[in-house]
């Protein structure tokens, strides 16, 4: 251990704010957030389970669906189900683990502009949703080839609009998870509420007549159904937009405000 190892030169110590204090780039922060999704055992396993789930759906269709249902498009849309359920959990944990594992202390000490960290988490979430969509496409293609061999329909037709809508749906659910995570900053609470509230809302919307028309606009489960079919109408987009504002944008905005203001200790 010598002085040279650690001691900065007096010139460095005396220098004013220089180029070294430039903001950390958003691209770099996004890569770091992606890395943080996979560098713990729990995160890595969640990703593995999502991949296994996508592969599993293909196996189910190949094994049990009628030959006519074994198409590229059918395999793809069914294959998105596991990631649609599990990617939001990844989003929730990305936000909440900073507080439950108390890493916010080092994260925000290294990047005091907390808004940039949140932006990077959102960007990482969108990228992982797109990656999941591409992975599902690949699995569906392989399964379709196998299906052709096994005597399935084997049609390769996939509507471009359906592909875009599917990617959008994946992104929406990840962002909703991130929003719930940022708003609640508590892993179990955020995960439970993420799954419970929309379900309860759907049940109430079904049961109570007065809520019927409101649910048609505010129940994301209901308004997002057209996304998995082709030919969405303007009215359907409008309903989707309203429920996205309530369930995704509002939690994201409020959650961001909460993270920006919260005392880190």
């Amino acid at each position, binding site marked *: 251990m010598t002085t040279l190892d650690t*001691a*900065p030169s007096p010139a460095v110590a005396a220098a004013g704010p220089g180029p*070294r204090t430039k903001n950390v780039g958003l691209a770099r922060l996004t890569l770091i957030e992606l890395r943080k999704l996979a560098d713990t*055992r729990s995160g890595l396993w969640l990703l593995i389970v999502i991949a296994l789930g996508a592969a599993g759906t293909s196996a189910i269709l190949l094994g049990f669906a009628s030959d006519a249902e074994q198409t590229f498009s059918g395999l793809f849309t069914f294959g998105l189900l596991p990631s649609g359920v599990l990617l939001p959990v990844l989003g929730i944990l990305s936000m909440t683990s900073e507080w439950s594992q108390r890493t916010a202390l080092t994260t925000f*000490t290294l990047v005091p502009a907390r808004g940039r960290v949140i932006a990077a988490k959102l960007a990482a979430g969108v990228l992982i949703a797109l990656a999941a969509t591409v992975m599902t496409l690949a699995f569906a293609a392989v399964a379709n080839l196998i299906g052709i061999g096994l005597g399935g329909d084997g049609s390769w037709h996939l509507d471009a609009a359906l592909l875009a809508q599917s990617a959008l749906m994946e992104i929406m659910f990840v962002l909703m998870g991130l929003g719930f995570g940022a708003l609640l900053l508590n892993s179990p609470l955020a995960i439970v509420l993420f799954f419970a509230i929309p379900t309860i809302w759907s049940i109430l919307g079904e049961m109570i007549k007065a809520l019927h028309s409101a649910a048609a606009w505010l129940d994301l489960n209901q308004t997002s159904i057209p996304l998995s079919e082709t030919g969405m109408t303007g009215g359907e987009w409008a309903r989707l937009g309203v429920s996205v504002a309530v369930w995704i944008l509002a939690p994201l905005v409020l959650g961001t405000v909460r993270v920006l203001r919260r005392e880190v200790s």
Partner: protein
Amino acid sequence: MITVEHLSKRYGTHPAVDDVSFTCEPGTVTGFLGPNGAGKSTTMRMICGLTPPTAGTATVAGVPYRRLGNPGRRIGVLLDASAQHAGRTGREVLTLAALTMGVDRRRVGESLDLVGLNATAAKRRVKAYSLGMRQRLGLAHALLGDPSILILDEPANGLDPEGIFWMRRLLRDFADGGGTVLLSSHLLREVEAVADQLVVIGGGRIVAQGAKAELLAASGTVVRALDAGALDLVLKRIGLTGTKATDGGVVVQAPAETVGRAAADAGLVLLELRPAGSGGLEQMFLTLTAGESVKEAVK
């Protein structure tokens, strides 16, 4: 350079930190002393922009911390060694920090070597680390960006005697090379060995601050007489009250000459008459902060 001006933090009606001001100059180690719950950590979190102050300002290298774009390259911070993801390996924790700061990944290995974490330890997950290992990892994290300022909250906690000795050398060398160190502790002995400036805080307020040498010089005189009762009377006559030290002596806030003359006039036999030094400082530290820590403990 760290500048803290009139920093205050209130939680409801409870003032956790009350009008605290001090500066840390390059080339010095400042010991930030106080009992548990005195407001040390809150002050340090405010300096690092993690806790918004109720009033006052703090700047690091002349800038409020939150305005620094990439602070890791200028300031090394260790506030809580346990605040790491339990599921990450030690090496991964440092790799994430290196990527964030934009320093060469080779620095990760160098930092691990520097703090004495070997390859096996670096591969283990943080949940398997002892507190001492976490502190070493935290120090490696703080030193990773080659900073010129260090802010460390109780870094000696959990370190073995050899580790404490090693850390003192590290901090002393860092300061001697022109660096600025702010180091907190609730143990006077621990910072006394390395600090040249002391800031003592109790109940959120600064109760003493200055150069260590000056504080030691001003810490009074130890006097021990053959007849303790007679010494009490003599001290009372010249308007002084002594506080009993643990070794049977009495600490008096007066120069040795004054006490010696009074004893000679009264014909007292003295067994000991010397500057109180660090013993006196500890006495002062206890009297200044004792009431507060008791209050804190029963809260």
